[in-house]
């Protein structure tokens, strides 16, 4: 162990965090956070900071005791420093990145959660580096474990599953790709509400796996089942647009996919099957043809080894059926949506039909544009048209609900 620093120095260093925490509390209170998670996040930050301030006082009292050896005090001081530095950076990240997500994306996610009757979920949408879902509660609980017991208890008892969806800018700017987020929303719903996968395979206490270490078969079964479940959820909820965008992403590599996810071949084969069971034969064939050139690597474990996968998917389907949220092709809505978008008019009746035709309409418009100037115009205005359609469809739904009351 390194030579211990003088005790007074360590104590004064820790004391500084009291001011920082208080200033952060004020900053959180004064910042407008987009989305439905604002009040719960502010409550979480306020309660945690109150607990951390009490924890600091207690730890300072410990540092003054003579019966603790100096190396122990040094380790405690370093732990406090590391934990609080990481916590303050998390809050800073949230405050600065929450407003980089457009209001339309918030409304997109809200509509999906409303459809599933999960409006009360604790989540924030942040602009981030990779499309991913992470548990803020679990991350912070690890930071505070051992040395800030009150804060750990608050997380466990009052905010057990506050989660964050990180969405990269390239995806935020391209609403045709937004159905890819539904896979992450599937993870979020599973982690916070359904907990179907963990009723079959025990939940490992670590994040997504990489190829750098060998994982136990049980841990991989949990992770793989979750991936198949999220794919199933997204396709069953949103229809063919999800698998199509996923395959497009294989070629563009806009979204990072961990190498230990099930192989592309198995995922696509499963998605083709989902479309078939939904009665969408044409979409299934299209997906199969579109993905035929994808080269695949072997999975760490084969899909067949997931002995409970069918039960997991059936239970997930049960939720979607209960909420009448399974995608069904509505030719009338598809045609109206196609017609409106071709004329550059927002379509606001059915977000699922809208996003299922948006890619095809954009492609046709670009192909039919005779001049470069016209092509540029399509490129410039089509995405805002889709965003406007999502925003207006959200407003229409909200207004219709108010009207019914």
């Amino acid at each position, binding site marked *: 162990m390194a030579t211990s620093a003088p005790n007074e120095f360590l104590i004064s260093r820790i004391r500084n965090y009291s001011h920082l925490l208080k200033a952060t509390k004020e900053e959180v209170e004064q910042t407008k956070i987009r989305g439905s998670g604002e009040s719960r996040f502010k409550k979480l930050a306020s309660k945690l900071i109150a607990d951390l301030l009490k924890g600091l006082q207690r730890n300072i009292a410990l540092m003054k005791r003579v019966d603790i050896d100096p190396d122990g005090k040094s380790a405690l001081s370093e732990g406090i420093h590391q934990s609080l530095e990481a916590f303050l*950076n998390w809050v800073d990240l949230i405050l600065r990145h929450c407003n980089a997500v457009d209001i339309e994306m918030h409304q997109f996610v809200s509509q999906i959660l409303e459809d599933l009757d999960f409006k009360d979920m604790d989540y924030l949408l942040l602009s981030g580096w990779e499309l991913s879902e992470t548990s803020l509660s679990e991350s912070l609980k690890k930071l505070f474990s051992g040395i800030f017991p009150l804060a750990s208890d608050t997380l466990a008892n009052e905010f057990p599953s506050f989660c964050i969806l990180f969405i990269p800018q390239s995806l935020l700017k391209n609403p045709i790709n937004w159905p890819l987020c539904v896979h992450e929303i599937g993870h979020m719903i599973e982690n916070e509400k359904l907990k179907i996968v963990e009723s079959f395979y025990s939940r490992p206490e670590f994040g997504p796996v990489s190829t750098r270490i060998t994982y136990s078969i049980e841990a991989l079964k949990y992770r793989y089942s979750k991936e198949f479940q999220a794919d199933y959820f997204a396709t069953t909820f949103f229809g063919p647009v999800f698998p199509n965008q996923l395959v497009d992403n294989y070629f563009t590599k806009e979204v990072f996919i961990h190498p230990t996810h099930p192989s592309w071949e198995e995922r696509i084969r499963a998605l083709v099957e989902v479309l078939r069971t939904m009665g969408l034969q044409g979409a299934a064939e299209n997906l199969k043809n579109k993905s035929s050139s994808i080269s695949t690597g072997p999975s760490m474990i084969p899909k067949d080894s997931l002995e409970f996968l069918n039960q997991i998917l059936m239970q997930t389907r049960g939720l979607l059926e209960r909420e009448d949220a399974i995608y069904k092709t509505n030719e009338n809505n598809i045609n109206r949506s196609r017609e409106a978008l071709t004329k550059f008019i927002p379509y606001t009746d059915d977000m699922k039909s809208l996003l299922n035709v948006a890619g095809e309409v954009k492609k046709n418009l670009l192909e039919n544009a005779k001049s470069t100037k016209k092509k540029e115009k399509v490129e410039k205005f089509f995405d805002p048209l889709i965003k406007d359609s999502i925003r207006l469809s959200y407003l229409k739904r909200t207004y219709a609900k108010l009207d019914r009351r």
Partner: protein
Amino acid sequence: MVYKKTESLPFVETLDDYHNQIAVRNLSTSALMAIDLRDADSKIERRWLAESLDFCQKSADTLKRLVEEKDKPTVDNFLSKIFIDLALSESEQVDTNRLQMYKENFDVTLNVLQQIQKKEKPKDIMKSKLFLKSFIEAVKATYSKTESQYFGYLSPK
């Protein structure tokens, strides 16, 4: 399967690894505190002791399994992930002797904590304290290169 060190990991895994190592360092520090404050009997000290017992028991069990798996240890919880990272040699092979050494020391520390719980006069206090201090330093060194990556991700652009 090749074992690799923690540098240049994807975003979500970097966050996860960093939080895991802070948790392990803080839990080891708590165990140090629980040993130093063995004669006190307040609510806080009892909680520290309970958490430390749980941590050391879980660590000893995890290490026992990792040692039994010999040259191909697998990850099943966040502790096993850290122990494997700690035992990776320069050639990215898992050093089973090191895992065995950690196991023996966690057994000793667990024994010390159990004696404290039973209000007995604990033996091997110095050994367990020295181990916990060196273990904290080893965790710190193993993840030192990922710190800038973690804060790089968290610091707003």
